[in-house]
């Protein structure tokens, strides 16, 4: 049994040291995915905390046939997707403008000089939700098509076609100037 699976067994026994190690290994990557998908730092922290809470309380439901990374990314993507659903429901109820990420959240972003990624962020908003989540997981951790398929419970072919579609939307949006 490899070390990560052994780690999960300890987390399932409520071993806080093991849990801290899990958080140390995945915290940064989960936070990056959540931050880019949700836009704001506060929402990302909230999402990552919720995902780890589910890892901690649901660790006894972890099955060894899963890579630990697959299991954790499944939990995180479930949390982020539901947060995106809530935003679009709120947008529908309160009427236009319907932006999944508010303008101020677009500016609240740390790496690189200000404005550097604004075009890419806007372009990503044009990509359908399901494909956007795949793009984030693909580029944050270089996950394979197979692993992406397991994380989202979809076929490898669906992963490939959604990623291809996302890339063509991104290329078109960037070429015409940042999705605006």
């Amino acid at each position, binding site marked *: 049994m490899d070390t990560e699976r052994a780690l999960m067994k300890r987390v399932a026994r409520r071993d*806080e040291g093991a*849990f*801290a190690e899990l*958080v140390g290994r995945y*915290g*940064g*990557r*989960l*936070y*990056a*995915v959540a*931050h*880019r998908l949700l836009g704001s730092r506060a929402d990302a*922290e909230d999402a*990552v*905390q*919720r995902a*780890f*809470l589910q890892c*901690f*309380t649901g660790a006894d*439901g*972890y*099955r060894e046939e*899963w890579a630990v990374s697959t299991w954790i990314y*499944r939990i995180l993507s*479930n949390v982020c*997707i*539901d947060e*995106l*659903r*809530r935003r*679009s*429901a709120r947008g529908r*109820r309160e009427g236009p403008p319907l932006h999944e990420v508010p303008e101020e959240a677009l500016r609240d972003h*740390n*790496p*690189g000089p200000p404005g550097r990624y604004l*075009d*890419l962020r806007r372009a990503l908003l044009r990509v*359908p*939700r*399901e494909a956007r989540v795949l*793009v984030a997981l693909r*580029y*944050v951790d270089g996950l394979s098509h197979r692993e992406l398929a*397991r994380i*989202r*419970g*979809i*076929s490898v072919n*669906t992963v490939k076609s*959604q990623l291809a579609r996302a*890339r063509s939307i*991104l*290329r078109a949006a*960037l*070429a*015409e*100037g940042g999705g605006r």
Partner: protein
Amino acid sequence: MNPRRPARGRTIDDRQLDLFLTDYFKPESAPAGLTRNVVRHARAMEEAMQQITQNLTIEATDRGVTLVSPHMGKAAGAARREAAGEDAKARRLAARARRELVEYLRGERAFFSVPVDLSGLPEFQRRVLETALAIPFGEVRSYSWIAKHIGKPRAVRAVGTALGRNPVPFIVPCHRVLRSDGSLGGYGFGLPMKRQLLDLERTTPVLEGCSSTHIVCRVGCDRGQKMRPDHRVVFASVADARSAGYRPCKVCKPAAA
């Protein structure tokens, strides 16, 4: 690696897009104190859950649930329960309500299928509660919205009183009614409980698919309850689920929700 931002008006090739995206999705450092916060939160949550579910008193007639109380003394409920408990159907409904409430409080249910029986209540209160019953899971409305909805726009205060005496809390979601300025207003079981319920609904998904059957259900559907935890995949809409190769469940009909 030095990904340059593509210039406007120019097409970018695949390699450029890859570099650009890889740089954009660089891992960041996780917020401090994450482990401690999560462990503390998990403990508090488990305690609160235990407290509520241990003391849950439920009564029903053969038409639906008439009373839910998270901390009623057993003796007070017993007499009435006996009177209502003759009927087998009423007992079944009470048992179903208990099961659904526990699932709801655990974040495993986004709707109640058990009916409520409000027929013993005064007309005004019944209409207020029936209106509250229509507020969707995870959403909120104001006291004045309810007042307008029942055609008594000036009766805002009376609406508050009627909701405050809601005999079937949780199932009739009086906790989803706030003041117009967004502040919490009142709650029969205290504001911390109201906040907790709103928070619970904010973090419970509404649609989940099963990665083995490729069927998407409302969270709480009987079929979904049988799903293995590691088969659960959350979706934001039925259209999203379809785009990923899932079909809507024929039992809970998520598209109609």
